[in-house]
Every structure is written in structure tokens, then in C-alpha cells.
């Protein structure tokens, strides 16, 4: 199988105020080329840390990671040429216009000035930002910023696109627009590695999923496989949702989640 992402016993430790933090404790991942792979987990489970290691943004404590066949620790620049990254915080410069940002990004990847301008125009069309292209980004809505961030991750036609919670904070219409764009990008052959907290999003978009909790992968499979496994194990007489799978494997219950909320009195 041609693997787009491969991680073996990936570990990340760092020093926090309360001592050593074991953010990721031995993650194995195998994502086939062309897949949309969902990476789910509760807050603080290690999703973003794993993505940051895979995208060369964070050093790896131990273990190995290859993206598009390149060892991210040994050849980070090689990996960077093959990946596109859109993180939780849309990484944009508010003082530039959308077009300037895309042209700069393309030129940083080695495109000539005319080629960069042409690529920026293509991407602005792809993410439906042609009209806003020459306005400063600080005036964009949240959805427009997300779409521009996505476009900037695509300037060099990456083999693997990493998206860390790409629809967090978006209204339902903007979320659906992003989903459509992701499907289009995947149809062109780009592997998508997606973290999300929205289970419906994972169900709609992902070919396969892995759920991480407390720094370890606790379940992996297609959405249908994960639901079927829960139905069989719990002898359910209905088709469980991915939310139920998530709550089951992470050991969280609605009662426990509700119990986490502390009432504050003045």
C-alpha cells in the first residue's frame, strides 16, 4: 500500500509548569494515499500535537514519522514541499490582501512571479474569493479567512493536506462550503489528514478514522466499522452514531461531561 502518512511509536514529551507532560505516548498511524483520514479526540488528547509533529512544526521526542515518503525529522524541508498545512488558527497576515498572501506563499515555494500570480488567481476562484481578493484580510469574515487559509495550503499542490479543526467556529453554511472544497481537493488526488471535534463532519468526509485519547490511539477503522463494532459489542438494536462511538471509546459519558461543568456563584 502506498502510504501518505506513516507514524511509528510517535512520542512527544515536554516540560510543563507541573512537570513532564506526556502529550503523545506512542502513536502509530498508517494513512493510504488518496484517503480522507479523520483524527478525532477530546480536547487535550494529543491531536494537535501529533499534527504539529507530522507537519515539522514540533520536534519529535521519539519514534518516527514519514509524510509522502519523507522522514519529517531527517528531511523537514523535503516534507514541507509535499504537505499543505491549515492549522486551528487560520494562519494569515491581516495586513495583506488575499491575493498578496497567496502570491507570496507561492513564491516562497519557488514559483516565478507570473506563475505565482496565475496560481493565486486559480485558488481564489477555487475558494470563491475572487471579489474579495484585493481587500485586506483583516476585513474578511471567519469563513472567508478559513477558505483563504485552505487556499494558501494548496499553492504548491501538496500531496498531503493537514487540516487541524478547519471548520471550528464557522456557521453551518460556511462549514458546508469548506466540506465541498475538501471533497473537490480530495477528488484531485490529495490525501487529507483532518482533525475535528465535529463527529458529523468526520462521518460525512472521512474514509477512515482514528480516535486518540490521553496520547494513545484507542480506536481505528472506517466510520461504518466503528459503529458496527459498538452495535455488536453492546448488542444495540439500532445503528449507533459516531458520537456514541466517540463517547464509548474515550470513556466519557454525557453525565461525566455534564459533571465537569462547575457552577460558579457570585
Amino acid at each position, binding site marked *: 500500500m502506498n502510504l501518505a502518512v506513516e507514524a511509528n511509536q510517535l512520542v512527544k514529551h*515536554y516540560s510543563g509548569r507541573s512537570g513532564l507532560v506526556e502529550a503523545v505516548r506512542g502513536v502509530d498511524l498508517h494513512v493510504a494515499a488518496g484517503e480522507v483520514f479523520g483524527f478525532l479526540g477530546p480536547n487535550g488528547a494529543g491531536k494537535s500535537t501529533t499534527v*504539529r509533529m507530522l*507537519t*515539522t*512544526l*514540533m*520536534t519529535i521526542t521519539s519514534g518516527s514519522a514519514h509524510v509522502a515518503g519523507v522522514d519529517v525529522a531527517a528531511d523537514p*524541508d523535503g516534507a*514541507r*514541499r509535499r*504537505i499543505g*498545512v491549515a*492549522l*486551528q*488558527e*487560520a*494562519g*494569515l*497576515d*491581516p*495586513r*495583506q490582501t488575499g491575493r*498578496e498572501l497567496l502570491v*507570496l*506563499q507561492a*513564491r*516562497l*515555494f*519557488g514559483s516565478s512571479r507570473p506563475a505565482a500570480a496565475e496560481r493565486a488567481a486559480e485558488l481564489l476562484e477555487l475558494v470563491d474569493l475572487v471579489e474579495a481578493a484585493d481587500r*485586506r484580510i483583516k476585513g474578511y469574515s471567519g469563513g472567508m479567512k478559513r477558505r483563504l*487559509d485552505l487556499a*494558501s495550503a494548496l499553492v504548491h499542490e501538496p500531496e498531503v493536506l493537514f487540516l487541524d479543526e478547519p471548520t471550528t467556529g464557522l456557521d453551518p453554511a460556511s462549514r458546508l462550503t469548506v466540506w465541498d472544497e475538501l471533497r473537490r481537493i480530495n477528488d484531485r488526488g490529495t490525501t487529507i489528514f483532518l482533525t475535528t471535534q465535529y463527529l458529523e463532519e468526520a462521518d460525512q468526509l472521512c474514509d477512515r478514522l482514528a480516535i486518540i485519547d490521553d496520547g494513545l490511539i484507542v480506536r481505528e477503522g472506517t466510520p461504518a466499522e466503528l459503529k458496527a463494532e459498538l452495535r455488536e459489542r453492546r448488542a444495540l438494536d439500532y445503528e449507533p452514531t459516531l458520537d456514541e462511538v466517540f463517547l464509548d471509546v474515550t470513556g466519557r459519558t454525557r453525565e461525566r461531561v455534564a459533571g465537569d461543568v462547575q457552577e460558579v456563584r457570585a
Partner: protein
Amino acid sequence: MSMTQAGLLGQRAIREALRTPEALLPTLFIPLFFLVVNVGQAGKIFPSGDTPFLKGQNYGAFQLPSSILLAASFGSAALYLVEDIEGGYFDKLRASPVSRTALVLGRLGAEAVKSVVITAALVLLALPFGITIASGPLGFLLLLVLTAGWATVFAGFMQLIALKSRSAAATNSGGLIFFPLLFLTPNFVPRNMLTRPMEIAATYNPVTYIMEGLRSLILDDFAWAAIGRGFAVVVVLGAVMVALNVATIRNYD
């Protein structure tokens, strides 16, 4: 490739500065304010004809290097870098195959360009008040280069604080170190007229040598020893700052 990338990032940083003129203007007006106030307070103590160290010029010419150095030490590049870090754009750049040296040199280069423009404006504004550049056009050019070198060094220092702290407040506070550096120099009188403790402090302060280099370009006809010491300080500190910045970005988690 690395220099092309540095150029692209430098252009972006200059565009950023031009789009926030409200951040740029104080770097011209505050140093001018200090020049006017310092000359107003001490100008009569050091009359042009009776003060050998002024070499025929007025006290404003002696004070001009302090204002030039102050203008070159605002380090606004570091605050823009903190914005990039907080907004996620710095991660976007780090996730691109951009040379880490280009990431540093882009901003520092833009800071040098800004410094050239502001220093030229300060000197031009000083000319009507009888201040001249004794070393002529070549001296003026060297003055611009030396000041731009210092602007790069100080911006590099501020960027280090920004990269380590990732906080605008900490970066702003770190910039205040320039005030002791500026005042532990032969700021008001030449080094040989300072009290002994101040003379020792000034001798160990690298800013002293840049100030003396600038002053010699304004007051003398090429005192190469002073100019050379100024450039040597800038080259050594500049290399140290670039190396520390690049190492910090390489290990940035």
C-alpha cells in the same frame, strides 16, 4: 533561494510597516523631541566657539547620534513577529520550505531599510539648524549603513525576546533595555569627560562605539579608527544575533 526568500519576506515586512504609519511615525518624532529637548537644556553650556569637542559645529551635531540611535532602536519588527506568532502566520511560514535564515533576515532587512529612511529624514530635518555632515556625502552614506547595522542588531535582539516569550508585553519590556544602553554612553559629553564609573560603563557598552562612529562621521573628516570600531561592533553583534535567531527558530516547538 534563501536570499530570494529573505527578499520576499522583507518586502512583505516593509508593506506591513507602510500600512501601519501610526506605528512608524513615533520612530521619527520621539527622537526629534529628544534632540530638541537635549539641545535646549545643554546647548548653552557647550557654546560652539568655546567647546573644542564640537569641532566648530553646534551642540545639536553632538547630540544627533543619540537621536539617530534612539530612532534605530524601536525594534517594531519584533512586535509584528509576535502578531505573526499569535495569529498563526508564523507557523504557516515555518511549515513552508522557507530557509530559517531567510525568516530572520527578511524582517531584519526590512528593519534596516526603514532605518535608512528614518535616519535620512532625521539628518535632513537637522540640516536647517546648522548641523552638517563633516565627512560629506560618503560619510552620510556610511552613517546610514552604520545606523542600519545597529537597527538590525537591536531588532535581532528584540526578535529573540519575541521568539522566546511569544508575548507582546514581554517584548515591549525587553526593548526598554535600550535606555540604559543609550545613557551609559558618552551621550552628553565625550568619553574622556565622563566621571570614572561612567567612563568604565561606557567603555564596556557596545553602543558607545557606534555612537562614537556616528559622531565622528558628523564632526570629523573620516576618523577611520572610530568608524572602524563602530562597524566592527555592528558586524560582530549582527552575526551573533542572526545566529541566535536562526538557532531559536530551528528549535522552536
